[in-house]
């Protein structure tokens, strides 16, 4: 857990963001392909990668693991991963797992 980025929220606006919209269910069936695409995105992302989760209809532990993995890889590249428009269901699992404080959010 100590590899997780804990950037304070105030620092999030420091660079112009790269915005990625996710939609649909994130589960163990869809996760691997999404993970690959997000890892590819890191190759051309600016220093701030923002995931818009407003259209995510399902996210369980597999989705959380994916976010942690992408964040870890992003951090190694000097990229901050942030979340925006987090739906209530995703917010809930983030809080239940204790991960919520580790993901900066933008409005």
């Amino acid at each position, binding site marked *: 857990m100590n590899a997780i980025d804990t950037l304070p929220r105030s620092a999030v606006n420091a660079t112009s963001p790269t915005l990625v919209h996710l939609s649909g269910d994130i589960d163990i069936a869809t996760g691997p392909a999404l993970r690959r695409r997000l890892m590819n995105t890191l190759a051309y992302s600016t220093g701030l990668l923002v995931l818009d989760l407003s259209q995510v209809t*399902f996210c369980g532990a597999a989705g959380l693991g994916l976010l942690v993995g992408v964040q870890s890889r992003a951090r190694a590249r000097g990229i901050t991963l942030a979340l925006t428009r987090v739906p209530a269901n995703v917010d809930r699992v983030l809080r239940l*797992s204790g991960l919520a404080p580790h993901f900066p959010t933008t409005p």
Partner: protein
Amino acid sequence: MTEETAAPSEGLAGMRDTVTVRLPAASAYLSVLRTATAGLAARLDFTLDEIEDLRIAVDEACAMLLRQAVPGTDLTAEFELTGDEMSVRVAVETVEPQDLKRDDFAWMVLTALADYVEAVTDKDLAIVLRKRRGAARPA
């Protein structure tokens, strides 16, 4: 699921309150099971938040089981609806059941969302979870 259960809630008068769903033990089918879970929970008048909790809990249980499922076999989900509680037993066939990992996100989320969770290693590998309507909800 042969034991007698309490009288079903009024909306289910006269209906047997046990539903079995059998699907290929493959991750692509979990979305189907989540949908079935939500539909059944709605029959018991669970709130939308509780239905979402059940959807996630069943998904986590299945995700844990699928790691050990024999390819080409089925995943079985038995739902039992009583007055204010849904009980779900999900099971897969394994070659030799291994203890489920209890230190990962899936187990953490599952136990947080369900009122009761039990892993059963018998001739198959199963997880039983229960959730009551109107129970205190974790933050």
